[in-house]
Structures are given as C-alpha cells and as structure tokens.
C-alpha cells in the first residue's frame, strides 16, 4: 500500500459521505444538531481538493495533510477528532513510501488513541469510538492470526458496523446526544455510523490497490 491507497481511501470517503449525507443528518437530527452529514461532507471535499494538489508526498504526509484539512474546515466535534486522528495516524508512517498490513494497524490504533485522548470517550459512551475500537482490534487480531489484509479489513468493517449498531440501545455519555439523557436511547450514533463508512472505504481502497 502506498500514497495512492491513501488518496483512493480519501476519495472513497468523500463519495460515500455525499451519498450518505442525508442519512447522517437525520441520525444527528434525532439526537444531536443535524449537521454531521454536512460536516463530514464539507471536510472530505476539502481533503480531496488538498490531496489533488499534492501528487508527490508519501502516505504518512498525505494523512497528516488530510487531518490538518479536517481540523481547518469541519469545526464541530468530528473535525478536531477525525483531524487529530488522521494526523496521529500519519505520523506513524513518517516518510516511508509504502506500508504493510501491521503498519496499517498501527496507523488506525494511533488514530483511535488520539480520538480517545482528545474526546475522553470510552467504549460504550455512544460515540465514534464504539465503531473505531472494535475495527482496530479486529484488524489487529485477524492479521496476527495470518489473514490477508483484504480479509482482515472485511472483518474490521463488519466489526465497525456491529459497533455502530451496538450504539442504538446505549444512553449517550459524550457529545451532544448526552444532553438528551434517556431520550438518546434507541438511536444510532451518527459518528459511529460515519466511522463504519470510513472503514468500509478503506477496505475498498486496499482491495483496489492489490
């Protein structure tokens, strides 16, 4: 995997966020403020533009650029969280031109750590962590067990989606949904939903690369 994989990933996120924009807005309207779809779309549109203007950087630098762009354009909770996540992930890769499966795990683990550090959310708080953490753990476990990157990412996507669905019965403890108290129960978290989309986009980008 290399810089093109990252670029394809970011393009894929951009496309799927636009497709799912209304759905994410609806989810956020139910327990938040109805802008998650707009926020993610605005952010990844800007990321794609920034990446289009950069054809020479190594993958780690592209991730840092993407993260910086998210911080600079999204606002809201998801901007600094995903922005810092991608920056932290990018730093793992330094200047190397390519990377392998276990390094991808470290990238995502650094992203997860950054989200948890900045947002102080834990598993079960009904946030994006509920999708990202199982994805990272599944990816690590499957690769350690000898699975191909493609297979492991497929399972990571499943885990993210399961984590996403697991947010439905939860009462939110972080983010805007926490203001609703018990009324947040019964709704799927928008950030967990977009996170599952991001993992699926990664799976497709890697499949395309191989």
């Amino acid at each position, binding site marked *: 995997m290399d810089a093109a994989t990252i670029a394809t990933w970011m393009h894929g996120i951009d496309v799927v966020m636009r497709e799912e924009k209304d759905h994410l807005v609806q989810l956020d309207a139910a327990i938040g*403020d109805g802008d998650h779809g707009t926020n993610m779309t605005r952010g990844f549109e800007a990321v794609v533009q920034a990446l289009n203007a950069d054809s020479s950087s190594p993958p780690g630098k592209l991730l840092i650029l993407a993260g910086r762009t998210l911080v600079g354009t999204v606002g809201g909770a998801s901007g600094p969280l995903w922005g810092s996540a991608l920056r932290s992930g990018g730093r793992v890769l330094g200047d190397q031109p390519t990377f392998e499966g276990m390094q991808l795990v470290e990238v995502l683990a650094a992203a997860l750590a950054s989200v948890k550090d900045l947002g102080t959310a834990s598993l079960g708080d009904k946030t994006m962590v509920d999708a990202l953490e199982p994805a990272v753990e599944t990816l690590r476990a499957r690769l350690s067990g000898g699975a191909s990157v493609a297979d492991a990412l497929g399972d990571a996507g499943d885990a993210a989606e399961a984590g996403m669905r697991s947010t439905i019965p939860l009462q939110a403890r972080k983010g805007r949904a926490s*203001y609703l108290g018990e009324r947040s129960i019964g709704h799927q978290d928008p950030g967990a939903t977009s996170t599952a989309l991001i993992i699926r986009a990664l799976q497709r980008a890697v499949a395309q690369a191989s």
Partner: protein
Amino acid sequence: MAVETTHMRKFLNEPARVVKESLAGLAAAHPDLVRYDAAAQIIVRRDAPRKGKVALISGGGSGHEPLHGGFVGLGMLDAACPGEVFTSPVPAQMLAATKAVDGGAGVVHIVKNYTGDVLNFKLAAEDAADEGIKVTSVVIDDDVAVQDSLYTAGRRGVGATVLAEKIAGAAAEGGAELAKVTDIVKRVNDRARSFGVALSSCVPPASGKPIFDLPEGQIELGIGIHGEPGRKRATLGHAAEIVDVMVEAVISDLKPRSGAKVLAFVNGMGGTPLLELYLLYGEVDKKLRAAGVEPARNLVGSYITSLEMAGASLTVLELDEELSKLWDAPVHTPALRWGA
C-alpha cells in the same frame, strides 16, 4: 439547490453563504464598532488590538445571533469567531481572532461547553501559546437541564455566556488584568444557571427541514440552543406553569442566598415575540420574589437564539456589588448598548 432554498421561510441567497453574508451585513451596519475579516471569517472590534487591554474573544456555531458578533464592541468582546450554523468554528478562526485582538495583556477565550467548541478552542489555544500569546480559557456550562457528571460531556453553555461576556468585558475595559478578567468569567459561570423550553423546532438553512417534529400543544423542556430536542416532552400549559418549572429548575440548582439580588435574563429563542417575553418576565419577576430573591437587574429579549425557534430560556445570575457594577458599566455593541 434553488429548489431547496425555496422550501424554507428564510431570507437567503445560497444557503452555504448565509453566515458570511450576514456577517458582512453586520459590519456594513456597524462600521463604527466592528470590522469583518472575511478571509478569517471573524468579527473584530474596530479599534483592536488595544495596547495593554486584556482582550476577550468568543465564538461558536452561528444561528445564535446576536451572539457573538453582535456583542463585539466597547465593554464586551474584542472579537467573535462564528462557525457555520450550529457548527463550531475551526481553530484557524480562533487563532486569527486571538492574534487580531492581543494587545500584549493576554486573551481570554470564552467557550461554551459543547464538545466541538471545546476541542476546537483547545487546539487554537495550543497554537496561540506556540505563537507566544498568553491565553486563558473558561468553559461556560450553566444549563441545569443537563445532569452534571464527571463521566459525561457535562452541562451546556447557554444564557450565562451573554452575561459573562458583558460583565467580564466591562472588567477588561476598566483595565483589569488577565487573571482578574478570567476570574470574573468563572464567577459569572459559577453563579448563573439556565433552563430553556421550546414550542417549535428551528430549520437549519443547510437542510431546510425542522430538526424535530413538535406538534402544536406540546413543549420541549430542557432544550439547548442548537435545535436539539429537550430532556422531556410535555403538554403545553399556561405560561405561569412553564415559568414555575423554569424558576424551580434554576433556583433549586443555584441555591442563592436568601434575599440575594439577582439578574433575571428572559431570553427568546428567535421566533418568540417580545409580547410573550415580557409576559414571561412578569411571571418570572413574581416567582423569583416569591422564592426569596430580588430581581435587581434584568434583561429581556432575544440575545442567544436558535434560529427561528419559538421558545425561551431563563438565566438567573446571583449578583454581588462588583458584578452589579460591571453589569451597569457602559457597553456599546450592535446588540447591547447603554451608558455610551
């Protein structure tokens, strides 16, 4: 796009440009007070930076007007960073505002407690520190509708924000230093509590649809300022009953000294006319007195809003002599003006 636009009861050109165009209009109407830096998307006091004066900035999603841009001027904010509607601004705006107003005495960031605002201001404060600017941050969290807990995002920042901006702005205008101004913001936040109710949802310009569906005859209790539904839905009763709920929620949490002088702030959410806000104030005044406190100061109007939402919030601030004096001090901004 044109079709979406027309499905709203709003004056708009491109929905995506509503914030920028409104800020440009604000600056065109008040060139004596503020300027609009369109590149950075910030509203800056016309004579900023003022050497030696502690500067105050605030910001957050738009849709709460006049907050914050309407409070930039003498005796209040030095700059405001408005994000898109209901979306926190980005750190670059906050950094630009901080740099535009720093007169060497330091900059106070007044941050409403929303994850987005807190995180973006945090990144901005780190950047400002890197550039050698003294920054302090105070997070406002006065909304008693939200249960306070170590394990959650905590309470929202609502009405107390306006009062903190006014009162700390007066302290800064009067020459107080960074630690003192910061402390005043914290004191206002400590001694203020709020509770809001909604009679309708608002319609964000980007989606053109109501955020929630509230049938006539129903009321959302414990709402914030982002069009989010409240903690509880109930049957709409008489204004007197609603005020009972608001006063009880605020006073039981604030626990003011008996006989304390308070500032009672009856705030409209954007779509509730003054006719009703004054009717509410009449009830609030009576009920606060019955609860053993004296509404020695008041503010009635739509100052921290949620687009065109029909609704209102009550904020009660327990006053002391210093806070009262700072409240009374001259202020001259687009939205709040006296003594100047």
